């Protein structure tokens, strides 16, 4: 374990007279790995819920193959779930596991390299059969050939113990075997002193219609727990105290859940009906699923025939006065580009959510990446400026969704919200806000109901492109409003009247005006978010989106080593905060870590002529905090000249 000061605090006496010790840890990273069919994601999510309700801070990293069921027992079929939990606040799912649970040889082979020497390795001995070993190319059984000597290996027959526990359940062997993940969860729940009632309630709820399955899973879960208590295989259990958190009500939330709830809240707080037009795509589909559950809020969800129809229908709904939303991932954004430009030209509110994944093309559908920034910025024909924002953590997806809606409604413009696969599926504890504390967006709606101009002869007339002088937003007059009939469309519009115009001066004016409107959003977003505790750092790290956690964790390590570094994290990518240029100019060096090949760095260099040092990685996985700490340390040391002694890459967050 990498915990600091493991201290034997108490002995617990288990039935059978076995005396077991309890070790207190400040944090643990557990990785559960198995076959796609083994239910590792479910097990991980349950362990996460238990951990959340116990009060630890936590962060998760689900990692699963794009194939629904790759052949059983093969390397491509391995699915894993990593959970980092602690008695203090943490920012990442952990660079490397302290504990690896491998349900079969394939899971061992795919994950062992990530487990540092001395780490705890729990194996399902039953699955290490000659056949399964051969499938992944093990010539000998690693449990027996001594190759696992560098780790604390505990090999236990999880499958057969599950079958024994369910011998009287009436279930067939195959069905009973399925509960081995719950047996494992029970064992881990004992090991880490997790509360169990939540899981029992969950299983009862989940299998409401199949009580015999619910009973079997609960029996397996309890058997696993009891096994931990009585076996000699595990002499120690661990205690990780709850993390201090601000008083309030908490829940565990994933990014896609938070984003969906943010959209519901935006609809409720603006009074507008929400319309979602979407075509299923990983990792965005869960937003469609979640919003489809909330019809009681008057939310219309439309599973369109393709991504183009998804955005087109949302534009139609916005024209009619709804809060139009479309959700997708990178390939879908490509398809939506032309319609996105239509929304820019017609100046209608629209929220476009891109849950980024590895690209290009189909890329890595289930892995994370933040490589759609330039597509969001520039991926359209013509001068087509688009507001772009990004959330920084799963829970922050909630606030980002409300902010996207605020900009869209206030400025009558499409807004791109760039989430990613890591945020979407990752989870963390989230302080539940009270609805009345959320921004009130009703004032921004302001449908036009009366003519705002007059013709030469004095007849009142509606001018659909006569702008609000402050925001440059045009009036939003919805069908059904008498006397306000007007036509909009993709052809260039004359200023004020909105009639088709091919006039060169008008096109130049309108192009600049559309740009000025987006640039003007900066007036509503506040200054750059800079974290520089001492106020005199010479080096800054700048990031956007889901790298917030790993960068923050890396920065903490660097600071613990006595070095100074500022962390700048951007919510708004277009426009940037008004003071960003000045802020960047304060530092000798600025490092920009990104899960792409340097897209934000390119924008910052172009806009501010600052020599940004880009640090990039596109592995489909979040950055490791230690790696970032090392990069930042090198920059600091080469800037200040005198390297400090302590190595920032070691230790916890």
């Amino acid at each position, binding site marked *: 374990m990498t915990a600091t000061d493991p201290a034997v605090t108490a002995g617990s006496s288990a039935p059978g007279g076995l005396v077991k010790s309890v070790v207190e840890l400040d944090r643990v990273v557990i990785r559960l790995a198995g076959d796609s069919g083994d239910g590792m994601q479910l097990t991980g999510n349950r362990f996460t819920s238990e951990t959340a309700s116990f009060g630890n801070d936590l962060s998760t990293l689900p990692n699963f193959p794009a194939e629904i069921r790759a052949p059983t027992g093969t390397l491509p079929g391995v699915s894993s779930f990593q959970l980092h939990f602690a008695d203090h606040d943490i920012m990442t799912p952990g660079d490397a596991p302290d504990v690896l649970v491998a349900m079969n040889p394939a899971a061992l082979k795919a994950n062992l390299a990530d487990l540092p020497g001395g780490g705890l390795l729990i194996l399902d001995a039953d699955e290490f059969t000659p056949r399964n070993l051969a499938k992944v190319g093990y010539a000998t059984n690693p449990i027996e050939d001594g190759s696992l000597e560098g780790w604390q290996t505990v090999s236990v027959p999880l499958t057969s113990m599950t079958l024994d526990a369910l011998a009287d359940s009436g279930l067939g062997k195959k069905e009973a075997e399925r509960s081995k993940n719950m047996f494992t969860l029970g064992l881990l729940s004992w090991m880490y002193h997790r509360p169990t009632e939540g899981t029992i309630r969950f299983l009862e709820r989940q299998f409401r219609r199949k009580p015999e399955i619910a009973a079997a899973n609960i029996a397996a879960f309890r058997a696993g727990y009891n096994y931990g208590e009585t076996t000699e295989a595990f002499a120690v259990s661990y205690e990780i105290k709850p993390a201090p958190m601000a008083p309030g009500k908490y829940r565990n939330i994933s990014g896609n859940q938070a984003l969906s709830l943010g959209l519901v809240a935006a609809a409720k707080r603006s009074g*507008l009906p929400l319309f979602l037009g979407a075509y299923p795509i990983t990792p965005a589909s869960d937003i469609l699923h979640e919003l489809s559950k909330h019809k009681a*809020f008057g939310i219309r969800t439309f599973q369109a025939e393709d991504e183009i129809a998804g955005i*087109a229908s949302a*534009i*139609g709904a916005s024209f009619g006065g*709804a809060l139009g939303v479309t959700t997708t991932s990178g390939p879908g954004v490509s398809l939506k580009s032309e319609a996105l430009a*239509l929304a820019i030209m017609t100046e209608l509110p629209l929220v476009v959510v891109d849950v980024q994944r590895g690209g290009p093309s189909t890329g890595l559908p289930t892995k994370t990446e933040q490589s759609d920034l330039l597509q969001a910025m520039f991926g359209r024909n013509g001068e087509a400026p688009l507001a772009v924002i990004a959330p920084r953590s799963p829970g922050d997806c909630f606030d980002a969704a409300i902010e996207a809606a605020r900009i869209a409604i206030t400025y009558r413009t499409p807004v791109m919200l760039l989430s990613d696969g890591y945020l979407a599926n990752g989870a963390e504890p989230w302080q539940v806000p*009270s609805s*009345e504390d959320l921004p009130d967006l009703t004032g921004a709606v302001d449908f036009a109901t009366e003519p705002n101009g007059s013709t030469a002869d004095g007849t009142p007339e509606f001018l659909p492109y006569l702008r609000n002088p402050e925001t440059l937003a045009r009036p939003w007059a919805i069908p059904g409003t008498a006397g306000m009939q007007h036509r909009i469309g993709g052809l260039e519009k004359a200023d004020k009247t909105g009639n088709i115009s091919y006039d060169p001066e008008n096109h130049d004016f309108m192009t600049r005006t559309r740009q000025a409107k987006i640039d003007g959003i900066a007036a509503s977003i506040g200054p750059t978010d800079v974290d520089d505790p001492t106020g005199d750092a010479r080096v800054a790290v700048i990031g956007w989106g889901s790298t917030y956690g790993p960068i923050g964790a890396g920065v903490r390590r660097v600071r613990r080593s006595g070095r100074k570094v500022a962390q700048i994290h951007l919510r708004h990518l277009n426009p940037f905060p008004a003071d960003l240029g000045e802020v960047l100019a304060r530092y000798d060096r600025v490092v920009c870590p990104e899960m792409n090949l340097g897209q934000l760095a390119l924008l910052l260099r172009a806009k501010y002529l600052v020599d940004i040092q880009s640090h990039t990685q596109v592995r489909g996985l979040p950055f490791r905090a230690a790696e970032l700490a090392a990069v930042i340390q090198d920059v600091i040391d080469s800037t200040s000249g005198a390297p400090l002694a302590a190595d920032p890459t070691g230790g916890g967050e």
Partner: protein
Amino acid sequence: MSTTDHVHDLGMPAANPIDAAVAASVASQGEKQTALKAKDFKTDQEVRWCPGCGDYVILNAVQSFLPSLGIAREDMVIVSGIGCSSRFPYYMNTYGMHSIHGRAPAIATGLAVSRPDLSVWVVTGDGDSLSIGGNHLIHALRRNVNITILLFNNRIYGLTKGQYSPTSEVGKVTKSTPMGSLDHPFNPVSLAIGAEATFVGRAMDSDRKGLTDVLRQAAEHQGTALVEIYQNCNIFNDGAFDLLKDPATGTQWSIPLVHGEPLVFGADGAACVVRDDLGGLRIAETNQVDASDIVVHDAHREDSSYAYALSRLSSQDLRYTPMGVFRSVQKPTYDRMMSEQLDVAAAEGSDDLDAILGGNDTWTVSA
């Protein structure tokens, strides 16, 4: 932290802002204006089709017939794609959106489902609806969203200056096909029926009465209505429909569809439609068949194979072209069913934001 329940909905708007905006505008003009004339539907925009284009005739017919529907101008929305025909909304004093190529049915779908109170129309061309927008067209039809689609078929790409279209006859010589086009055309009516359309009609631009009659039925139809309008492009495909328009040949080759009437056509009713041995339809000489064998047109037949068979009577050179309403059947509309689901959800559930923010599993950290 106190665990007392919040008082919900403080500061929330009293009424839905859409209804409030509509009500405010109606109040300011007294009441909904529905007694309108053709000129009330005209705009001050200069119409920019080529002189002699069939689009003018259709625009006039639509503007003349609309007042009879009794729909206020503000309650009507015309969404179009791209093409000569898709300029249509600019000339109509209603709400309108001239959108992007092929996507009008999808835009109209989003609008119609979120605003079932509106009368939503789509104006599209043969290229717009059947090439680039083919996918949206078929899905709008199968969903049966309450929209009326006017497909201006001139069998050519007008706006891009005369390339062949998906309805052009095989062998069409155009700039992009100097040796003649190779691909077989769509029959838009067959396509629509195959896509589960509940209303399909066909009319001729120059036939004011026939066009108005089909348009009226389409407008009154609940669900997606598709009207194929044969439209002359006098610049790039002039005379494409002369076989049907020319009084000398028109009666011979068009089959008027009148619900409840026998399908008899041609000079002196010399030709008729009868069933063939395989359950399809064929053309016969009226004096060669028993009167009882002549098919009586039934647009309301649930089974679409009859309407489909009717659509297959014509060939790509337009001989034996049925004109009128092929099919008009009632099915629940998508927008209404969606509204009903929302009503059920509202009755069974709640719209308490705080309840869903909290979810099923929360824990409280006290100070």
